[in-house]
């Protein structure tokens, strides 16, 4: 019986949460193979852990994974996808106070703007949008790191003039009112992939069957998550410890991110993102093909 070391994070990996919380629902977990779960703060440390060989598979953002490839000699396959921005669904956006004089992106000049991670995945599209509106992201604004969890407070307290918003915090802030959306990432690109599942290439090559079983379970986990919202709310509540009433307001609803029913990675979209990063100078040009395994990729049955 083999073990696979998996890194995960919060808040939007419902299929993995199902695997953690409802292993009995998956015929293989605990029987043909084991999973050793380790939770991380954000995707960047997991990239390091992958590069160090301390993890076999982990949740990744396109940017962190690409950074690992460029800087860390990491070779990995994208085997599944967790969430992306669907048309009409939630898109990470920058909010300002209702009474703020900032009406357009161009008004951000000279302002303090919060972003969850400087140099993180959202910064590429963000930079692109700013540039398109004549704002130099390096000189014209003061960028500060504000985690999603404190975004709303930072904005209301006036510590920042504009700040990015993500679920579930966006839902909470909207419920309270007083803030408005300035622009969202979908304006830069309609189908941004936020998080995906990546496995170390050497590990996949050595244990193809094991990884196959894992990807199979991710696929079926995604299915279960989408099929049984009631139960998914419970599962997510157990993992996130966020109260169900809060989750109820957005999770798997229209104002949430999109989830592919087969957890299939959207490689063209990822390629587009890599291009944006290259364009904004955050990465050299990369070809998404290197992340593609010929057979082991969701959906797998």
């Amino acid at each position: 019986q083999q073990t696979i070391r998996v890194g995960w994070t919060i808040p939007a990996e419902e299929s993995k949460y199902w695997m953690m919380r409802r292993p009995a629902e998956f015929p293989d977990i605990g029987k043909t193979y084991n999973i050793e779960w380790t939770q991380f703060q954000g995707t960047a440390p997991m990239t390091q852990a992958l590069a160090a060989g301390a993890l076999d598979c982990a949740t990744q953002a396109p940017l962190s994974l690409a950074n690992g490839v460029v800087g860390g000699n990491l070779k990995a396959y994208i085997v599944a996808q967790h969430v992306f921005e669907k048309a009409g669904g939630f898109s990470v956006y920058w909010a300002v106070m209702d009474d703020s004089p900032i009406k357009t992106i161009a008004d951000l000049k000279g302002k303090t703007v919060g972003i969850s991670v400087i140099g993180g995945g959202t910064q590429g599209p963000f930079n692109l949008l700013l540039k398109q509106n004549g704002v130099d992201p390096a000189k014209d604004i003061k960028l500060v790191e504000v985690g999603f969890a404190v975004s709303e407070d930072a904005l209301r307290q006036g510590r920042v003039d504009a700040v990015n918003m993500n679920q579930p915090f966006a839902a909470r802030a909207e419920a309270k009112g007083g803030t408005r959306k300035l622009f969202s990432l979908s304006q830069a690109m309609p189908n941004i992939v936020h998080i995906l599942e990546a496995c170390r290439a050497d590990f996949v090559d050595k244990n193809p069957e094991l990884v196959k079983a894992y990807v199979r379970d991710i696929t079926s986990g995604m299915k279960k998550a989408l099929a049984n919202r009631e139960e998914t709310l419970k599962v997510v509540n157990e993992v996130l410890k966020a109260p169900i009433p809060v989750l109820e307001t957005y999770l798997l609803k229209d104002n949430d991110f999109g989830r592919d029913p087969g957890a299939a990675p959207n490689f063209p979209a990822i390629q587009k993102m890599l291009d944006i990063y290259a364009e904004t100078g955050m990465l050299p040009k990369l070809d998404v093909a290197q992340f593609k395994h010929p057979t082991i990729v969701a959906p797998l049955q």
Partner: protein
Amino acid sequence: MISPLALARRAAPMFACIGLLAVWQIASLALKNDSFPTAIEAIRAIPDILGDKESLINILASLRRMAIGFGIAVLVSIPLGLLMGRSRAVAAFFNPLLMVIYPVPKAALMPIIMLWLGVGDITKTLVIFLGVSLPVIYHSFEGAKAVEEKMLWSGAAMGLSLLQRLIRIVLPAALPEILTGCRTGLVLALITMITSEMIARQSGAGNILFNALDMGQYDTVYAMIIIVGAMGICLDAIFERVRARLVRWSEPQFDMPLSFS
């Protein structure tokens, strides 16, 4: 019959805690800010955490790591500190090394530590070990340095070897100072127990806390903070008992005639 003064003294910790909570309550009400919940909100969240079996297991896992890290740190640091205190050469050898190693934040070395030690218990225990050993080494060091020489001479004249002198004279003579280091070490053990789980998390008290932080569940964050504080009080009370037993001989004979009361 307990005198009113003694009663007041015994009740003082209670009053201080209540006062602390009151200050918190007022401050949070005044600041009106979601990420700083009121004391009452935080206290209300405690039963949820302690009532959850999984959380309890998590907390116990953290405590186990802390106990192991603390134990190893004390066992390693006291001899090292004493040796440094009694030998200029040993001190000259280790001092710069320690001063180069300690200021480096362990969080920054995570990638490399993960490379060799993985992301499991060993890494976190190591972080706790480093946190605890810092004060223990330096207090042992200074304690050993201040041991009255003539006591050592007396021991040497009785035929105690170098090692015996270290164990049987320097150790007890420096014990009050060593225990001061252990007390600080205990504080740091609790802190590092939590922070060691900030980046790579498995089961643990820090896991609960930082998850809640990431999720903006501030009542849970502060409830965890209260729980850690309570652990601090308990461990500290136990420690003070042990300390009082061990160093009764060194307590000042008379009350400090300085009281302003």
